[in-house]
């Protein structure tokens, strides 16, 4: 995307407005009232949006809090609490104009002091505080104006501000200055906090003083117009899939965040339910530990990549909902590229054996680490089988997520590790590249990636950034830095009484209503 200018923002806003003016069909008249209960798989570690990047938290926090910029339906950043931004010619100064009259759940009105306090809090406590590591200073330069000075050019700064990962939520200044444990869950979102029953549920209520963004006319990703028709939203934590299904069937819940393929098939065609396919939602990746021989050898990595039949892996691990697409961002991203994809899914055992012969692999048994979810274990098992066919011996090491995620960021104890990336390809190239920059995921610095990443974040021209990302993707394939196995998705199910529900990264409860 070209540099962020006021003109650019206004242009984008006008285009969005025009597209959004289509009226609702007459039959779909919103009806106010009622409670919608969403069954989610896990309890969030926190509902203080800034403190966690856990996906279970996002389901709730993105109803409670808002950010200066937010992602639209295609994952592009658009203004939310900000009216727009003016960027200085040197790319170091960002002046944000704030939307006037935005109310907090505690009755206060959002001003520049709240934004400054929230950003400063995030820099200290935020779960992804590195999103703001280029910030030099944040100042209130007017009642509704905030100026951010960067210490270096960071083309992804607006992307970062709009990240839903661990949102840079705007809190009232008096809340932002409290210790984290005393924070009262007050934001500007269309729902306000009512109750948190530990291990049971979170209840939110419609915020009647919510100031819907006048610059939009329709729902659009995490931004857009957020109109709430229901009275109450309940997020119930239900770890057992059978219980979630039973609760849906008895009408105890109206939305199930995700069901497995067989359940989706069972519910499809039943008038009482609407099954929504959300694809792509994740990208399945198999990592190499470059700090361990023979994974430090490019010929070995390329041999492994050449051996694998991605269709087989994805069909086994995600039989009902996957697509074979080797792009390191999703297909709807403006940065999507086919660069390097001639090396995706080549499934050529002869080529693999040839490369293996040139490599330092000497027949030793290698460790494939995986967490204990069925999909990741199936991925690891099938890769083990396929590698066995070309003569690579692999043993599986299965543990729970906290264990593998601890080992996986150390240089020993593993050679391969497979898991899903969800938010990274959705957020775009910078997030995807950051995973491999400084050798974070492969445990060994890759100067080419570091250079490309630095070039990307320092480049304000979108066209040039696209080229850089294409080069990154080519490098990932040519050097088999890691393997993109394919994309997969999930099935969200809603009761038929729930109207106007459109699936997205979270089950959004604005814009929906219950049939009488």
């Amino acid at each position, binding site marked *: 995307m070209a540099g962020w200018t006021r003109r650019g923002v206004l242009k984008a806003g006008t285009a969005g407005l025009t597209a959004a003016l289509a009226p609702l069909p007459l039959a779909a008249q919103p009806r106010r009232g009622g409670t919608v209960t969403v069954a989610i798989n896990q309890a969030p570690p926190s509902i203080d949006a800034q403190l966690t990047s856990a996906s279970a938290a996002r389901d709730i926090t993105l109803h409670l809090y808002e950010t200066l910029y937010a992602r639209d339906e295609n994952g592009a950043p658009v203004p939310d609490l900000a009216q727009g931004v003016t960027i200085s010619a040197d790319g170091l100064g960002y002046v944000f104009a704030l939307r006037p009259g935005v109310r907090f759940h505690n009755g206060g009105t959002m001003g520049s002091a709240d934004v400054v306090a929230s950003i400063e809090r995030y820099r200290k406590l935020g*779960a992804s*505080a590195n999103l703001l590591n280029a910030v030099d200073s944040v100042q209130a330069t007017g009642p509704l104006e905030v100026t951010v000075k960067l210490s270096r050019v960071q083309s992804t700064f607006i992307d970062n501000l709009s990240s839903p990962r661990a949102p840079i939520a705007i809190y009232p200044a008096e809340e932002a200055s409290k210790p*984290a444990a005393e924070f009262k869950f007050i934001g500007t979102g269309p729902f306000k906090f009512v109750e948190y029953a*530990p*291990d049971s*549920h979170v209840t939110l209520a419609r915020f009647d003083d919510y100031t819907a963004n006048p610059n939009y006319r329709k729902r659009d990703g995490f931004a857009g117009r957020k109109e709430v028709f229901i009275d109450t939203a309940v997020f119930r934590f239900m770890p057992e899939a059978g219980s979630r299904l039973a609760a849906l069937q008895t009408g105890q819940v109206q939305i199930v965040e995700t069901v497995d393929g067989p359940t989706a098939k069972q519910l499809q065609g039943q008038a009482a339910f609407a099954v929504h396919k959300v694809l792509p939602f994740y990208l399945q990746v198999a990592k190499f530990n470059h700090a361990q021989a023979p994974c430090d050898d490019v010929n070995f990595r390329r041999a492994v990549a050449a051996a694998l039949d991605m269709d087989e892996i994805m069909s086994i691990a995600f039989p009902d909902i996957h697509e074979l697409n080797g792009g390191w961002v999703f297909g709807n991203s403006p940065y999507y590229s086919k660069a390097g994809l001639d090396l995706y899914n080549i499934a050529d055992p002869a080529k693999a054996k040839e490369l293996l012969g040139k490599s330092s692999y000497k027949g030793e048994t290698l460790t494939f680490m995986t967490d204990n979810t069925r999909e990741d274990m199936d991925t690891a098992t099938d890769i083990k089988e396929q590698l066995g066919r070309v003569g690579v011996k692999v043993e599986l090491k299965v543990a*729970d997520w*906290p264990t593998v*995620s601890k080992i996986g960021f150390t240089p020993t104890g593993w050679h391969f590790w497979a898991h899903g990336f969800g938010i990274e390809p959705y957020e775009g190239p910078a997030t995807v590249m*950051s995973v491999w920059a400084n050798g974070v995921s492969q445990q060994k610095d890759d100067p080419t990636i570091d250079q490309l990443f630095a070039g990307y974040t320092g480049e304000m021209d979108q066209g040039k950034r696209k080229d850089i990302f294409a080069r990154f993707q080519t490098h990932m394939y040519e050097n088999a830095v890691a393997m993109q196995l394919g994309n997969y998705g999930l099935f969200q199910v809603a009761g038929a009484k729930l109207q106007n529900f459109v699936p997205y990264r979270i089950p959004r409860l604005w814009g929906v209503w219950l049939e009488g």
Partner: protein
Amino acid sequence: MRRFILRRLLSAVPVLALVSLIAFGVIWLVPGDPAAVFLDASATPEQLARIRHQLGLDQPFYLQMLAWYGRILHGDLGQSILLNRGVGPAILERLPVTLSLTGLALVFAVLLGVLAGLLAAMRHRSWADQSLMVLALLGLSVPDFWLGLVLIFVFAVGLGWFPASGYVPLSESLSGWWHSIALPAFTLAAVQVGFIARMTRSAMLEVLHQDFIRTADAKGLPWSVVVTRHGLPNALVPILTVIGIIAGGLLGGAVVVEQVFSLPGVGRLVIGAILSRDFPVIQGGLLFLALIYLLVNLAVDILYAVVDPRVRLE
């Protein structure tokens, strides 16, 4: 009796100390990072380090252990890493759910188990005896998570008599509480019914062959009176032993049943803490469950003396 209780309580202290030591040590030997729960797969080491520092996990093992023991001596189980609250309050706010579940399950198990065992003993070698013992064996063999799901689909989805999941506090609504807890309690009780029924049957059969029973029968007492007034009280000691054991089993089973029925109890708290390496909650939860187990066993010991005067406590 008072001295007996005091002595038993004092003897619980080293047991609890041992449990706490094992819990602290074992958990630290298991790899895993609570900071990872706050972040996702692409978290950088810097982000993880920052969260670890915020959570105090960068302190040496011995310092964390000393701090924890210092706190529990003041009755403070510490601060949960993930819940943003104290471990003690976190356990206490979930305790009513677990007590409701295990308490009602115990009532179901004892009533149904003793009744089935009595009937089987009184109709020894009849079709009723055989049928009841087959049912008891079935109850023992069926996994509780499977039985729970079957009951949900029959009684919640099929018949609509009970909600599929969730918990309504007793203070909010008696009827709501009963509806939310009956199915989980029955699921939890099913395995234990089999235990108690089989133990009651064998204890009763042994007693019913004693001379004093023959005498009571010969005196012309109705058989039901012979069984309930003379037989059952004499068979109670082994039955009580089993009840003491199953009370512990119920606490263990509650973990699974709370998960299946989405009940926010102590078991689910501990499981969640284990999966996310929330060390203070794991340690506090284990300590607390060990304490409950010890108290239940103490209660059983006292009941021995109540039902059988031959048992000397001193």
